[in-house]
C-alpha cells in the first residue's frame, strides 16, 4: 500500500486510487465540482488543482534526503488535477499552499464570470457547491465589467426536471450520470468556450426512472425539480433520516419538512444499499399520502358514519367488539408497509391477548416494477421483517390466500388489520361488507377505512421510529420527520426552524397536530384494556424485546444500526466495514 503525504499528514492508502479519493476517504476535502465517486473522471472543472511532487532520486535510484533526513521533494512545475492523478509511493500533495489557493481563486473567478448569481431565486441556494466555494475560496469581488453571456433560463428536460442554462457550470456530471448510471445517453455538450451548453438530443427527453438524481448531483441550481420548484428555501426545512417505503430495496432517504409538511424526499448515501441514488417513483410517490387526506383521530362507526371519538372510547369499543368472537373467528393482518415494532406487537397481541392463530399479511409483488438497478418487485418495504417478527400464520391459522373463502363461509367474522391499503385485493374488499367487525389502523381515508367499524389513527413511516428489513435482509433504522401530538417531545429541536419557534398567534402553526399513534402503542394500550400489561415506553423498548426474543435480530440496537448504516439479519456481530461517506454538497445552515 503506497504511503503518501497530504498537507503534511501521512496517509497509507490502497494502490490505484486518485489523489482526491485518497483525501476524502481520510476525511480531507479537496475542492472540486466535476468529480463524483460513482461517475467516471472528466477532469474539466479544474477546481481540484493541487501541487503534487515526488521525492527526488539519486542516480542509483535511492531517495535523496536533506540534512534532517527528510526526502527532498521535487514538485511538478504546474499544478495537477487531484481527480485524475493516481497516487504513487512517496507522493507529496499540497492543497493549501499559496499557488494552490491562487489557482482556486482563479477558477472561481472564471466560473463566476458568466454565472447569473441569482441565488435569491435559486432553489439550490443554501446547499450549493458554487455558493459554498464562493464563500470559502473566492475573492468576493468581480473584475468583469462586460455583459454576461445569457442563455435560456427555463428549459424543460422532461416530466421531472427544469434546466437553467445560465446557472450551469458545465461540469458534465449530468451527462455522465445519464450515460453511466441511468443508462439513458441523451445529454451532450454543444458549442465551445463561453457558449458551451448542455443539450438534449433532438426529440428526446431526460425521462428515465432515476432522472431526478441529477438534481442532487448538479453542483449548482441548474437542474431543479418540477415537483419541488420554489416550495421552500432549504434553510427553512428540517431534514431527518428515514428509509423509502416505496419498495423492498429500502433506499436511505432524508425527508425535507417545513410547517409540518413533507416537501421533498432526497437520497441519503448508503454504500451498501442505494449508494447516492434513489428512484423517481420513491421520491415522488412516498410523501403525498403523509400530507393529505389523513385520518387524524380515532373514529367509531355510528350507523352509517364514522364519528371521531377519544382514544379511550375507541379502545373500550374495540375490546367489547372483539370479545364477541371466538379467537379463531378473528383474522389479524399485519403489514409490509409498517415497521417491525408494530408488526411484532400485533403478533404478540394476537397470540397472547386474543389467542388467535390467524396472523398473516398481504404482499404486493409487481414484476413490472423491478429493474436491474435499485427497484425490486416487492413493493412493500418490510415484508421480510414482518414475517421475521411473527406475521405468519400458526399451524392451524388462516392464510390470506384462503381468507376470501373463509370470509364467505363465515369462518372469519372479524378482521383486525394494521394497514389501509389492500385495494389490489378486490375480492376481499367486496366481501368486507359482510364482515361483522372490521378494525383498521389507518393512515388515510381509503375505501377500506371507510368500511371500518373502528378506526385507529396510525402514524405513518414519517412519524415513527422503527426498523425495516430490506430485500437483502438488511435491518435499517428510520426516525420521525413529522410532528404528531404523540412525538412532539421526541422531535424537539429536530423540527424545522419555523415549527420550532412558532407561537399560537402565528398562522403557520395554526393547524392542529395530528392525534395519531404508532401501531405498537395503539396495541399496547388496547392490551391494557384486556388487562394485559406491557411495559413499553418507546419503540426502542419494543426493539429491545425483539432483539432478545428473535435470534436473527440478536445484538442489534438503534445506535448500532445508525453507526453501521444497517446490519444484516443474523449478522449483528459482523457488520460491513464503516466508510466515510462522500457528500457532494449538503451545506444546510439551520
Amino acid at each position: 500500500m503506497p504511503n503518501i503525504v497530504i498537507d503534511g499528514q501521512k496517509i497509507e492508502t490502497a494502490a490505484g486510487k486518485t489523489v482526491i479519493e485518497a483525501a476524502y476517504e481520510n476525511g480531507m476535502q479537496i475542492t472540486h465540482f466535476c468529480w463524483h465517486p460513482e461517475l467516471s473522471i472528466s477532469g474539466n472543472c479544474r477546481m481540484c488543482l493541487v501541487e503534487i511532487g515526488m521525492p527526488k532520486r539519486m542516480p542509483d535510484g535511492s531517495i535523496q534526503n536533506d540534512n534532517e533526513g527528510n526526502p527532498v521533494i521535487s514538485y511538478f512545475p504546474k499544478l495537477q488535477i487531484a481527480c485524475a492523478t493516481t497516487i504513487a509511493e512517496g507522493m507529496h500533495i499540497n492543497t493549501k499552499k499559496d499557488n494552490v489557493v491562487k489557482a482556486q481563486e482563479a477558477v472561481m473567478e472564471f466560473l463566476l464570470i458568466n454565472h447569473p448569481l441569482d441565488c435569491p431565486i435559486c432553489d439550490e441556494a443554501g446547499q450549493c457547491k458554487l455558493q459554498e466555494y464562493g464563500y470559502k475560496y473566492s475573492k468576493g469581488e468581480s473584475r468583469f465589467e462586460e455583459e454576461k453571456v445569457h442563455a435560456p433560463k427555463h428549459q424543460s428536460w422532461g416530466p421531472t426536471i427544469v434546466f437553467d442554462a445560465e446557472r450551469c457550470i458545465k461540469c458534465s456530471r449530468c451527462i455522465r450520470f445519464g450515460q453511466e448510471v441511468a443508462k439513458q445517453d441523451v445529454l451532450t455538450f454543444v458549442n465551445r468556450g463561453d457558449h458551451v451548453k448542455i443539450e438534449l438530443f433532438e426529440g428526446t427527453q431526460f425521462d428515465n426512472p432515476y432522472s431526478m438524481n441529477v438534481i442532487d448531483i448538479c453542483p449548482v441550481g441548474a437542474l431543479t425539480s418540477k415537483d419541488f420548484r420554489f416550495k421552500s428555501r432549504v434553510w427553512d426545512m428540517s431534514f431527518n433520516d428515514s428509509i423509502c417505503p416505496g419498495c423492498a430495496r429500502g433506499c436511505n432517504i432524508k425527508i425535507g419538512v417545513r410547517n409540518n409538511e413533507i416537501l421533498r424526499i432526497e437520497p441519503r448515501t448508503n454504500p451498501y444499499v442505494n449508494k447516492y441514488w434513489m428512484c423517481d417513483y420513491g421520491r415522488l410517490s412516498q410523501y403525498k399520502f403523509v400530507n393529505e387526506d389523513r385520518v387524524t383521530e380515532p373514529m367509531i362507526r355510528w350507523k352509517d358514519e364514522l364519528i371521531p371519538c377519544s382514544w379511550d372510547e375507541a379502545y373500550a369499543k374495540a375490546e367489547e367488539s372483539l370479545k364477541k368472537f371466538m379467537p379463531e373467528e378473528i383474522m389479524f393482518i399485519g403489514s409490509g408497509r409498517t415497521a417491525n415494532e408494530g408488526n411484532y406487537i400485533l403478533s404478540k397481541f394476537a397470540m397472547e391477548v386474543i389467542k388467535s392463530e390467524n396472523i398473516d399479511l398481504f404482499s404486493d409483488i409487481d414484476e413490472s416494477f423491478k429493474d436491474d438497478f435499485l427497484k425490486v418487485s416487492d413493493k412493500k418495504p418490510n415484508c421480510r421483517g414482518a414475517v421475521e417478527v411473527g406475521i405468519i400464520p400458526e399451524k392451524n391459522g388462516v392464510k390470506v390466500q384462503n381468507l376470501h373463502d373463509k370470509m364467505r363461509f363465515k369462518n372469519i367474522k372479524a378482521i383486525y388489520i394494521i394497514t389501509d391499503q389492500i385495494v389490489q385485493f378486490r375480492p376481499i374488499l367486496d366481501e368486507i361488507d359482510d364482515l361483522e367487525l372490521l378494525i383498521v389502523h389507518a393512515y388515510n381515508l381509503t375505501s377500506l377505512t371507510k368500511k371500518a367499524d373502528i378506526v385507529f389513527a396510525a402514524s405513518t413511516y414519517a412519524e415513527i421510529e422503527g426498523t425495516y428489513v430490506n430485500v437483502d435482509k438488511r435491518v435499517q433504522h428510520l426516525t420521525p420527520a413529522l410532528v404528531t401530538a404523540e412525538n412532539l417531545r421526541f422531535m424537539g429541536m429536530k423540527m424545522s426552524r419555523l415549527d420550532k419557534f412558532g407561537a399560537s398567534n402565528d398562522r403557520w402553526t395554526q393547524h392542529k397536530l395530528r392525534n395519531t399513534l404508532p401501531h405498537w402503542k395503539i396495541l399496547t394500550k388496547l392490551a391494557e384494556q384486556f388487562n394485559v400489561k406491557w411495559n413499553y415506553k418507546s419503540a426502542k423498548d419494543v426493539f429491545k424485546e425483539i432483539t432478545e426474543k428473535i435470534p436473527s435480530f440478536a445484538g442489534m440496537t438503534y445506535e448500532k444500526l445508525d453507526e453501521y448504516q444497517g446490519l444484516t439479519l443474523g449478522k449483528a456481530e459482523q457488520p460491513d466495514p464503516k466508510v466515510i461517506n462522500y457528500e457532494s454538497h449538503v451545506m444546510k445552515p439551520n
Partner: protein
Amino acid sequence: MNITKNTENDRMNFWEKIYLPEIARGMGLTLKQVFKPKFTRQYPEEVWNPEGSYRGRPVLVKEEGERCVACGLCSRVCPALAIEVQASETEKDKERYPVKFEINMLRCIFCGFCEEVCPEEAIVMSKDYHLVFQSQEEAILGKDKLEVPIAKLQDRLEFLRQYR
C-alpha cells in the same frame, strides 16, 4: 465586628432632614417649567410626518407588478420571525412571486433588517406608525395591506439610495 457605616441619616444635615426647604425648591422648579414653550402634540388630530430615515412598519413596494421575488431572505433574517413568505412560479421574467406574504405586526420590532437584506428593494420601512388592531388575527398583514404604491415611498427609497 468590623462594620463600615454610611447611612443617609448621617449624611444629611438638619435642614435637609426637616424636608420643608427642599419641597419649596422642587415646587420652584415646577413653576419655572410652566412658563417654558410647550412640546406636547395633540395626536391624533395633529399628526407628525417623519423623515425618510424613519422606520415605520415594513411594506412591499408596488410598481406595475411586484418587485418581490419571494426569495425568503427577509423571512430568514427577521430576528422576530415576523415574516412568512410562500413562493410560487410565474411565467414572467423573474420566475417567482409570493403567493403569500404575511407580516405579523405583533412580532415585528421595526429593526429594518428585512429592508436591508432584500435583493430587490421590494420591502422597505414606511412612515406608517399608526398601528391599531382589534385582534391578533388582524395584526397579521397580508399582501393586500402590505403593498404600497411606489409613489408613496419615494422619501424612503431616496434615503436608501443616499445612505446605504
